[in-house]
């Protein structure tokens, strides 16, 4: 990479505004600052809840932009959802002098950050907390944190107060640049989607199941698009032949259609606090996945 250019990857979930933020950044850099630049979305259109990656390349005005498409390596990676850090592909290719910015409340330090280069800069910003307080978009807060962290980007007009950000040190243990992750290819095996973790698709709420209230009518089952409800044979001699035992939150995208349809108030909307889903999850494939 040329020392004067900048390659930035936005790692996000459809609906959180990463494509828009990447476009806004590159567009301001080109039209306002006179830089050369590009913005590349990993998928069009952006599906709600799906993993989304947006890539921005910036270079000085006279310098032709080489490269297009997804960035295998990056100087900065902005992570819109802390759950994405569970997948190493999220920070793959981060350069040893690179910057990782992630959205999470204070004190949240996922173990996965140990895989980062020891020399990389790590910045945490409570984007969702700030956005809720100031009634603005969290994507704007993250974009502001990114622009505050790079002198080249301060003039875009997006930069926010650096005091909102916490710079963390001593997390990464990796020596040198992180290698890019190679995607699996070839014909996928039947049912291999069960390895996907879709919990990042939830936007703040999940259905909470109360087994005492449940009449096991399966009205929820028949409208659940995520196929994440767990059913078992009922207890011998019990009232029910089939019983709902819980939700596998790995696959639940939090649409709450089960809550809306439940005639017995056994499914209730609940705000998702850290660790809640893990605590109450009932696995669909306990012998296979994790």
């Amino acid at each position: 990479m040329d020392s004067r250019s900048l390659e930035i990857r936005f790692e996000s979930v459809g609906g959180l505004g990463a494509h828009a933020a990447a476009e806004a950044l590159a567009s301001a850099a080109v039209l306002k600052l006179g830089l050369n630049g590009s913005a590349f979305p990993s998928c069009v259109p952006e599906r709600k809840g799906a993993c989304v990656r947006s890539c921005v390349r910036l270079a000085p005005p006279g310098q032709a932009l080489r490269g297009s498409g997804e960035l295998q390596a990056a100087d900065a990676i902005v992570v819109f959802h802390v759950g994405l850090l569970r997948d190493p592909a999220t920070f793959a290719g981060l350069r040893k002098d690179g910057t990782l910015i992630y959205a999470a409340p204070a004190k949240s330090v996922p173990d996965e950050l140990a895989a980062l280069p020891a020399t990389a800069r790590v910045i945490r910003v409570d984007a969702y907390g700030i956005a809720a307080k100031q009634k603005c978009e969290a994507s704007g807060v993250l974009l502001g944190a990114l622009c505050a962290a790079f002198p080249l980007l301060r003039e875009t007009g997006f930069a926010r107060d650096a005091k909102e950000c916490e710079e963390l040190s001593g997390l990464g243990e990796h020596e040198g640049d992180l290698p890019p992750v190679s995607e699996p290819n070839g014909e996928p095996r039947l049912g291999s989607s069960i390895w996907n973790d879709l919990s990042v698709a939830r936007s703040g709420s999940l259905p909470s199941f109360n087994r005492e209230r449940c009449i096991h009518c399966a009205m929820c089952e028949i409208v659940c698009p995520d196929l994440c409800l767990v059913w078992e044979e009922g207890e011998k001699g019990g009232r029910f032949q089939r019983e709902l035992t819980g939700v596998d939150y790995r696959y639940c995208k939090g649409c709450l259609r089960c809550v809306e349809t439940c005639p017995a108030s056994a499914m209730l909307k609940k705000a998702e606090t850290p660790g809640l889903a893990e605590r109450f999850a009932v696995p669909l494939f306990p012998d296979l996945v994790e």
Partner: protein
Amino acid sequence: MTALRQKLAFCTGDEAVALAERDIGGQAFELDSAHGAAAVCYGAALGGARVVGTTSSEGLLAALEQLPVQAGARVPMVLNAACEHSALYRALNTGWIILCARDAQAVYDLNFAAIKIGEHPDVRLPVLVAYDAFCTRHEKRRIQVFDDAEAIHHFLGEAPAFRTPLDTLHPGTFVASMNDLQVSKAMEAARCVIAAVFAELENITGRAYPVLEAYRMEGAEQAVVLLNSAANNAKDAGVLSPNVLRPFPAEEFRRALRSLKAVTIGADPLALEVRAALQLDAATGPKVFNETSEAKPPAADARPGLPPLAAAEVSRGMAKVTRDEATGRLKVELEPLWKMTSVPGRVAPGHGACPGCGALATLHQIYKVLEGDVVVLFQDGCMSEVTTAHGASAHRVSTIHSAGPSGAATLSGLAEASRSKDITFLLITGDGAMDAGLGEAIAAANRNHRMMILEYDNQGRMSAGAQSSYSTPLGHSGKTFHHRDTAQIFAACHLPYVFTATEGYPEDLMRKVAKAQWYAKNEGLVYGKILSFCPLNWGTADDAAQPVLQAAIDSCFFPLYEIERGHTTITYDPDATDRRKPVSDWLKLMGKTQHLLEAANSEILQAIQSETDRRWARLKAMHEHPEL
């Protein structure tokens, strides 16, 4: 000529085409399928209009049949093709001039050049402007656009008055046959014209487009030959990439390569032509490698999946179908929903559908009642994409993913080739792919193959960013005409069974699907249109399926009925239960239709209401009269 005034823009390849179309001036049309669009463009160009069209990978392949016809008839136009190289290679020898645009700037510039080249009296050929399907198409880049209408007009000149069938005083026979020699002469003549037009373009824009572009080739001993944006990605090597692919720049390649030691060619069809160009220097020229000859075999997905489902595991008798001897019609007895929880899913969790996706709920309900072995063809659209996202598969039975909208035809061939009477052949399609492939689906219906076509209708091409389809109602996303009544179209094919349903009424849907399977196994083709919730593009909360779908059927916008052996039965009559509502009660529930409730759009609202009432009244008449 002096430089013209320009201004800065930041746009994708597709947006660059739109800007070029705007600056060239004209009227826009949205068409149904790529094949149909190519034919419409040919007609307009025959009429003397200056035509700029757009298509994409599979679209180019669908349009392919039209391409040699238009070149042979010597009718110029410009077709922008955002495509995979593999698709572009199929169009190499169709008689079209092919310009390659590696980025959004080139897409914009080459559209102007293409018009001028194609319309030159020595050339009179249509021109393809090819750019990469994903990279160039969707990547935003910094570009310069013209800010000087007069200079553009001066550059392009008036559209030439070639002979046209509209000139009834001078009748002609417009055929493409036996024109190969003419076309190849025109193609040769194009070499000089292209050079002159590119020079003129450089003169006014300052941007050069050499026929063969060289990057880091000074003093190089080796080079890579790459096409379009791929050439932009090579950083530490000498790169050669053609801006003009037809006529093929053989002499330019020969001059650039003959003194090198080695050249690697990044694409097979290009390799043949570059090797041919180097034949004259066979003894002294470079050693030629094909990139693919060195390619490693693809690595298989290491993660285990779920075991395949045996037919017996999923055949649990959840819907018992019996024939009523008196009426000849089928009766279905459903097991309770809780019992259905014992049926293993033919589709697994972990798919990438949006939260609240109704198409997935539809698929889930269909699978609950289907018995035995099922082979499913997923036509291009959301369901085919999200069930195979992230390099994984959510399917547990055999599925086929069709290229383009020909799924009904492909499945009919498969059904005929099958010796087993036990397999049910099921086409799952969105309304978008059905729109593009309606002709072939109707042909399959006329042949009455033993198969099911089940359409999850979410009122648009949602996998293509909510573009409109035949099901998009009037006034939704700017649609200017009513949605097509496809259930009635299929009814007119006199199929054994046609139905409408919605995932908001699972029992009704499952009863109809069970009947449909019986008819597909015993009598012939069935068609079902299933209204499915799309919170993302309908602009609703993720959990709003029930009220929105209920309002759609209560307003009779989407009536629930079945046509069994020609007899229409309304299966839900909101008049009878006093639940009938005006369509506005449905439209007000969705973000996408809020504008229709504004006073300024009262005429559109009234038109939707009138059409809904008219179709409902016809349906009631059919319900009441067995002869209808």
